[in-house]
């Protein structure tokens, strides 16, 4: 199957629920960020050593969840397509919280700002965190424009998920440095 379709050449794209919208539409911005985040996570996974199998699987599960998030952002509320999609729920955020707690146990208390970087995997995790925050900001803007309660609720769940994910990515960055015996660099004012 050809990769290029050409139907977006004039600045419009199709939502998953069938509407043709401008590529500058907030919804498109939001799922574009989620797509970018997913790709950065791909870079992060590629930078992990092969023995980090569990961590790799955990991040790949998050990548799958991000496809679901992207799908939610690409449908208009109340459309029949929406009812085909698996909801992003508290369950997804709880899994992130459990992972944060697990990794945090091995980390020292943090009193200062950190310079993003260290091991290449930690650097990827910081990039992912920043993209995740941008995605979250776009979803917040989107939910502010959403008229329907049902949609606001789902977008709220997405915001919670993305918020938790950026926390996860911050802790993950520190975890990646720790497993590679690299100290986090503190910002010196």
């Amino acid at each position, binding site marked *: *199957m*050809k990769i290029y*379709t*050409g*139907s977006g*050449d*004039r600045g*419009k*794209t*199709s*939502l*998953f*629920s*069938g*509407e*043709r919208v401008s590529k500058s539409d907030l919804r498109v911005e939001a*799922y574009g960020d989620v797509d970018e985040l997913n790709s950065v996570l791909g870079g992060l996974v590629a930078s992990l050593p092969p023995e980090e199998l569990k961590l790799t699987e955990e991040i790949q599960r998050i990548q799958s969840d991000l*496809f*679901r998030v*992207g*799908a939610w952002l*690409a449908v208009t509320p109340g*459309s*029949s*397509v929406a009812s*085909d*999609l*698996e909801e992003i729920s508290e369950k997804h955020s709880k899994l992130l919280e459990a992972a944060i707690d697990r990794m945090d146990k091995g980390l020292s208390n943090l009193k200062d700002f950190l310079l993003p970087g260290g091991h290449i995997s930690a650097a990827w995790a910081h990039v992912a965190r920043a993209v995740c925050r941008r995605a979250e900001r776009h979803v917040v803007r989107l939910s502010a424009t959403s008229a329907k309660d049902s949609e606001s609720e789902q977008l709220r769940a997405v915001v919670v998920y993305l918020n938790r994910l950026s926390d996860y990515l911050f802790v993950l960055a520190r975890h990646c440095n720790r497993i590679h015996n690299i100290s986090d660099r503190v910002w010196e004012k």
Partner: protein
Amino acid sequence: MKLSKTVTPDANSYATELLDRCWLTEITFEIRLKRPPSFTFEPGQRIRFQHHSIERDYSVITTPDDTTLALCIYHVEEGPFSPILAAAAIGTSFTFTGPHGYFTYRPSERSAVFVATGTGIAPFLSIGRSGVTGFTLLHGVKTSSDLYYQPFFRSCAAVYVPCLSERRTETPPTDGFHGRVTRYLEEQFPPGIYDFYLSGQQEMIRDVTLLVDEKFPGSLVYTESFY
């Protein structure tokens, strides 16, 4: 946004067996497969054959109530997989995953316009056979011999327009159109807001989508791209 391959919830894998094959034209055939008892799908969805390292998708043309699964297939002579389906002995085993895709009929207050090229007609067969009526169907084919399901669609479509792209001496069906589906939409189809369902060739999908932006703004566009 294209998600069809990526967000389908984990599809199961099934073993099946070739029961029957019948040729509709020299290059298009139907096959009937054993339906695994636990396999369910919605009209418009597809299955994905897994054959060694090859994966190929086919829309199911039967309904969820049928006891067998049928597919309508174009024989790409130089292709790696369709010739296998064209030649496999009855009783050959295959493996597939599914159901895949979201190209299902979604009732709305707008009129549905189904547009297919060639075997892109396949998902509309399952949808029509499942009881959906009253739609407009444009079927783009080369010659009228490719209109294999004409009698069925005449019985359930409100408007059925075969669009024949190859100019020949043959007389077109009385309500047929000589030209591509895009030209029919451009020149003959009344402006309005519709739900478009586009299935088959990617170029047709692109051209119709761009036309929707120009001539039918506000319409929805659902797509199933075959190649």
